[in-house]
Each structure stands twice: as C-alpha cells, then as structure tokens.
C-alpha cells in the first residue's frame, strides 16, 4: 500500500513473486497420452464437435467448429484418436470435452493458410485467418480475437494497445514470450495495424518489473516511429483493459461500453503474436506458454504447452509438489480460478498455474470494518467497495447499484487489502448478480 499525496492510487502491491520463474527460458512441456479439449475455451457460444469417437485426428486439425459469431474453433494439438466426447471438469467448471488419445506420431494437418504470405494479406484475409485459427484473448479473458479486432462499423480506432503488463503475481508467461520472441510480436503488430487505417499510435504497455522485455521490445520496434514501448508502474491491476487505456491515453471507457468507443483496441501480446503465427505459418492456436509457479511447486518453470494438456502433467514436469498445496489456480492468485481436480486441461486463456500453500491461501478471520478506507484507495475504478458490500449485506440492492456495483471489474484488490478480511469482492459479485436478476438481464 502506497499513498499518493492528494488523490488516490487505484492499485495494490501484492508481492509479485515473479523471481521464481522470470529468468527461466521457456522449455517444452511433455505431452501426455490423454489430451482434453473443452469445446468452450472462450467467451461466447461453445464450439460444436465435428469429430466422432473413433475418428483419427491430426495435430492442428479442427475438431470443433465455432458455434456462432462470438465463438472460436477448437483444434487438436496432437495426432491420435478421439476416444470420448463427454463432460469433463475444466477450469471454468464442467464442460463438454473432446478426449484425444495421443499417438505420439505428431502427424500434422495442413496449415490453415498458405505460409509465408502474411505481409501481403488484406484486411479481410487477416481477420478470416485469425478467426480460422481459433484465436481468443490469451491474457485470460478468452474473448474471440477476430471479433475484438472488428469494431462495429462507424467506429474509428486511432490507438492500438498491446497488453504486456502481466500484473498478476507469479505469472511470467507473457514476460518470457515478449523477451524471447519480440520480433514476432512486432510482426503481429504490423499485421494488426493493417486492420485499422486510422491508426496513429501503438502502445506496448509493460510493467517496470520486466526491464529485459522492455529493452527487447524497444530494440525490436526501433524502426517504427509510431510504436511506443511504455513502462508502467508495477501495480495490480495495471493490465486491466480499462486501466491500461486510462493510463496510456487518458481516456475512460464508458460504463458498459467498448474500448472502441474511445478509439482504442487492446490486445494481449501473446494473442497478437499468435495472430502473426497463424497468418505467417498457417498455425492454428494449439499451444501457448504457461508459467507454473508457487511455493509448493518443486521446480517452477515456464513451459510451452500444447493446449489440452491436463495440469497434473505440467506439475509433474515441474518435479511435483514439495509442499502440500492448498489451492491450485488456473491463472494468478488475484483473478485465477480454483480447480478441484488436477486433470483439468490447459486452455487457450491459461496464462499460468499458480499453486498456493494452505497458509498462503488463507482468507483470514472476518472482523468488523475499521473504516481504514484502504479498499477505496486501491480500487482501480474508484468505487467504494465497503459501501457496496455493506449495502448488499443490508439487503439494499438498489443502493449497491447506485454506488456503482456494476462498474466493478472484479480485480480483487479490495478483498486482498482489507485488514478486517471482509469478503468485499464476493459481496459485490453477489450484488451484481442480484441487480442483474432484478433487472431481468
């Protein structure tokens, strides 16, 4: 907690714990026998399986087709045989999944587009390829990228923001991706810029705790006078879309509005890199970098993981547990989701596996609020979390709404910072659900 003198700071400083993995180059994860591909690895309609049990599939072969405009294709990341299509536990709960038995042949499917011609692709070709590759927001949001990159007609985009903040503690997958492949990110940016003719500037926002990545990208972008690598204060949630836009351009997205409303598009760096690889090499999104870290992990690592790999395989790659794990998270400790079963697969938006000891994951004993105002201080969207929480607990849903419950981005700073260990975000989430229910949305 730091105080700014007159105003508020809108962020918190959880210990970033990145030093466990931030110097470790990405290595290949082992690929297990059984791979699990949920048909819903994204926001939007689930994809529809187009294979049947017994079918042979190739690595990079489409196995489920997008189920609507806001949806994404699902590809098999290995070659082998479909042995089941059934409900399986996933990071977001149970979901229909296609189970592929790996034959370890790695027979490759045809590329999704002719390789080597990304530089001459038209706007429509790029968007079609991104859509075809099944690319979704890889920073965790998993919103279909082709949709994100096609703002509603009539909206001009003058600023492209590449999110390299990676503000979650422990996570280092974006850090390593930017450091090890800066040229592919810049190539992805140059591809993306084709989509926005009015584009004036491109910001790459990176937290200052990644000086080597900042340096690598400054070098890689040296020839472009409209690409700006911006060093951001290391402060959670620096990487939230709304805060990035505010911090880099001074603009504020309207409540319920799109970044395009303030002429911005924000995309995660790994997503943009995947767009480049899809267009240049014809690769669908079948692998990603995942950092596996946390006190109980014997040997934390950054791994290049084939999507669909169950978590326990990655934990094994990291030497297993040296300590009793209390919580295993898909993502970081601030916004990640708990899993109860280590058989859940890595999906397109899984940036990290974070393992916490029971002590680290302890939520503390709730006490009475002492009115320290810390939650107000750390809220990135300037809410008064304690008031919303209290309004909710008193059953005053209307008041919770007036206090801005719907504007909460659920970053978790309020619950994290509260010395009285009040479940502020939980209450705000419940308030939001109650407001939505009341308004029949």
């Amino acid at each position, binding site marked *: 907690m730091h*105080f700014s003198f*007159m105003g508020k700071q809108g962020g*918190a400083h*959880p210990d970033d714990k990145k030093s466990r993995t931030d110097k470790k180059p990405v290595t290949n994860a082992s690929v297990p026998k059984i791979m699990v591909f949920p048909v819903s690895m994204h926001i939007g309609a689930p994809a529809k399986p187009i294979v049947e049990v017994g079918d042979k599939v190739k690595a990079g072969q489409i196995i489920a087709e997008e189920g609507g405009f806001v949806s994404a294709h699902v590809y098999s990341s290995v070659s082998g045989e479909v042995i089941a299509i059934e409900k399986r536990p996933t990071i977001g709960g149970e979901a229909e999944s296609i189970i592929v038995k790996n034959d370890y042949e790695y027979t490759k499917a045809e590329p999704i587009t002719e390789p080597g011609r990304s530089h001459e692709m038209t706007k429509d070709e790029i968007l079609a390829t991104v859509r075809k590759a099944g690319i979704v927001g890889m920073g965790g949001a998993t919103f279909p990228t082709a949709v994100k990159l096609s703002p509603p007609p009539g909206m001009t985009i003058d600023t492209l923001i590449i999110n390299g903040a990676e503000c979650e503690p422990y996570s280092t997958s974006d850090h390593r991706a930017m450091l090890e492949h800066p040229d592919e990110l810049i190539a992805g940016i140059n591809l993306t810029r084709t989509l926005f003719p009015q584009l004036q500037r491109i910001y790459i926002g990176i937290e200052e705790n990644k000086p080597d990545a900042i340096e690598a990208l400054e070098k890689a972008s040296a020839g472009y006078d409209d690409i700006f690598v911006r060093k951001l204060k290391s402060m959670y949630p620096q990487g939230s879309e*709304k805060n990035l836009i*505010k911090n880099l351009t001074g603009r*504020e*997205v*309207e*409540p319920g509005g799109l970044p395009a409303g303030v002429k911005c598009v924000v995309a995660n760096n790994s997503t943009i890199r995947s767009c480049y690889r899809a267009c240049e090499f014809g690769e669908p999104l079948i692998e990603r970098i995942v950092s596996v870290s946390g006190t109980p992990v014997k040997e934390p690592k950054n791994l290049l993981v084939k999507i669909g790999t169950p978590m*326990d*395989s990655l*934990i*094994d790659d990291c030497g*297993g*547990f040296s300590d*009793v*794990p*209390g*919580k*295993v998270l898909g993502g970081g*400790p601030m*916004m*990640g989701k*708990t*899993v*109860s079963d*280590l058989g859940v697969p890595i999906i397109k938006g899984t940036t990290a596996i*974070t393992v*916490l000891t029971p002590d680290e*994951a*302890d*939520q*503390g004993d709730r*006490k*009475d*609020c*002492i*009115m*320290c*105002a810390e939650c*107000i*201080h750390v809220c990135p969207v*300037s*809410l*008064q979390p304690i*008031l919303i929480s209290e309004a909710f607990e*008193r059953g005053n849903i209307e008041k919770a709404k*007036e*206090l801005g419950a719907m*504007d909460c981005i659920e970053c*978790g*700073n309020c*619950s*994290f*910072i509260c*010395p009285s*260990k009040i479940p502020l*975000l*939980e209450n705000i989430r419940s308030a939001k659900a109650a407001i939505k229910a009341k308004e029949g949305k």
Partner: protein
Amino acid sequence: MAQAVDVQGKLRVGPSPHIRSKRTGSWVMDQVIIAMIPPLLAATFFFGWWALGMVAISTATAVGAEYFYQKLTYKPITIGDHSAALTGMLVGLSLPITAPIWMIVFGSVFAVIIVKQLNGGIGRNYFNPAVAARVVIKALFTPWLENWVLPAGLFGSGFRGVDAVAAATPLSFIGDGMRSVPEEVPGFLDLFMGFNLGGNIGETSKLAILIGMLYLIFRRVINPKLPILCITTVFVVMGLWSSFDFTFQMTHMLSGTLFFAATYMITDYSSGALTPQGKTVFAVGVGVLTAFFRITLDHPGGVGYSILIMNALAPFIDSKLMPKIYGHDKRPQTSFNRQGSRS
C-alpha cells in the same frame, strides 16, 4: 502422476482473490500504540513518572470498560483488536499531569462506552472517542483542570506533579485576538522540544510526536496528507491573520494540541472522512476551525472542538465527495452512511 493423485479431493476451491494482505486491524492499532511511545517517554521525561501511571490507568480502564460492557451486554469481546487500549492511551496522554485519577477513569469510560460502544463499536462511531472525552472533561470539570504546571523532570515532580510550579501554556498568550507573539512566550526550540512547557502530558514535545507521525507514515498506517494539511492550514490561516508574522505562525503551529491531534486524532479511521477528497476537506477543515477558535476564543481547546465539528460533518462531506467512478461523468448521485449502530 503419483504426486498429483495425493492431492485430489483435498484442494480448496473458492472465489478470487486467493491471497490476502498480511495486515490486520489489530496490527494497525498496534502501530499507533507504538507510535505513541515517543510522546509517552517525553511525557515521563518532562512531567515525571506519574505520566506513566496516568497512561497505565487510562489504558487499563479503557480495556476494562470495553470488556465489562461487552460481557454484560452479551456481545463478542473485542479487546483483542487493541483499539480500546489505543483509545485509553490517547485519553491519558491528552490530560495534564495534575488530572485527578477519577478524571482519567471518567475519560476512558466515557470514550469507550458512550462514544464508541453505544454508537455501534469499532468503525461505527461518529466522534473520536478520546477527543470527545477530553472535550467533555473540559466542559464539566474545568475547575479541576486549569492548573497547568511546568515540567519538573523525571524525578522532580511527584505524584500528580504536586511539587511543580504553576504555569500558563503558550496559547494563553497568543490566542484571543492577538496578532503577534509577546516576549514571555517560549522560543521555537523550547516549543519544539517541549522544554519548560505546560500542557497535556502527551502534547508538549513536538519532536516526540513528529517521530510518531513519521513512524505511522512510514508504516503506511496514516495518510500523510491528513497531518500535513491540517498543520499547514493552521500555519497559513495564522499567516493571513497576522500579516505573515513568521514568529506568530510558527508559535501557533508548535503550540497546544495541534501536532498531537494532527498525528493521532484526525487520522482516526472511524470518525474521519472515508473518501480521498473528503480526507482533504476534513484535514483542512480542522485546521481552519482550529485557527478560527484560537483567534476568537479566550480559552484553550480549539483543536478538540474543531475535530468534533469535522467528525460530525464527515459523513456529509463523504456523501458529497464520493469519487467519480471510472467512465462516469458525475460522482455517484447517492449517499450511504455505514456508521452508527448495527441494525
């Protein structure tokens, strides 16, 4: 995969965030208690060993009062949050060495029972318990209070400072319409260090208070803008009043309870403003009112009145200065007061 099988079924699940900061409410209270050690030592050094006795009585009374109140009303016992001890220490430190024991006890009981517990307990009270108790004591018991004495050192003054020499506090020379500093008033160094200064035992050494203030800022327990704005405001208003007579401004800044209150009283979470801009208005408000009362009143106590007035205004200030939410043009058009007794 043997490793993984071991944990299956034992993993905890739950909503994010999954980590909590180490800070707790009682840790915060402990920091303020630690920050009061320098003024307590200074009080002992200047006014004698009885200063320790006073604070021991006020603290024990405050903790005991909270304990028995909660016991008798079948409420959870909360003395473990250390907030009652903190209030008790403040009560003790804001009385003069001559204060009778019954007055110390009255102050702590009044602060903890009437101001804090009957208003809903921790985080719910509108008024700063120690300040309210001090102001009530002054209103009710002035005849037993007014004999300020000069400090006579650790062993120079006996029980309740009975051997000490009666004195006036600097404020009695520079308040009530004065615009400059008469010669009798101690110099800056004496005012800052607390040498030869009458007053409440905790407030005379500004050096000791400053150490406590810096500690609390360093520990990020108090928002630095509160003491800084409050003290600076008094300095500026006194400048306007005295046509910027630097000696007059400095003497006011270093006199009375201002430093003590700016560090330990207006930074109280519960009775202060909650919103960032509200805090600014609150601190400046205390400063302006303090200067105003010092100029217009012929008796001390202006800081106490100022704090209580701003305490009463704080919920209103907060409701008018709710932060503008990201993406909105206006502040939330609502008010919500979370203080007062729990329903």
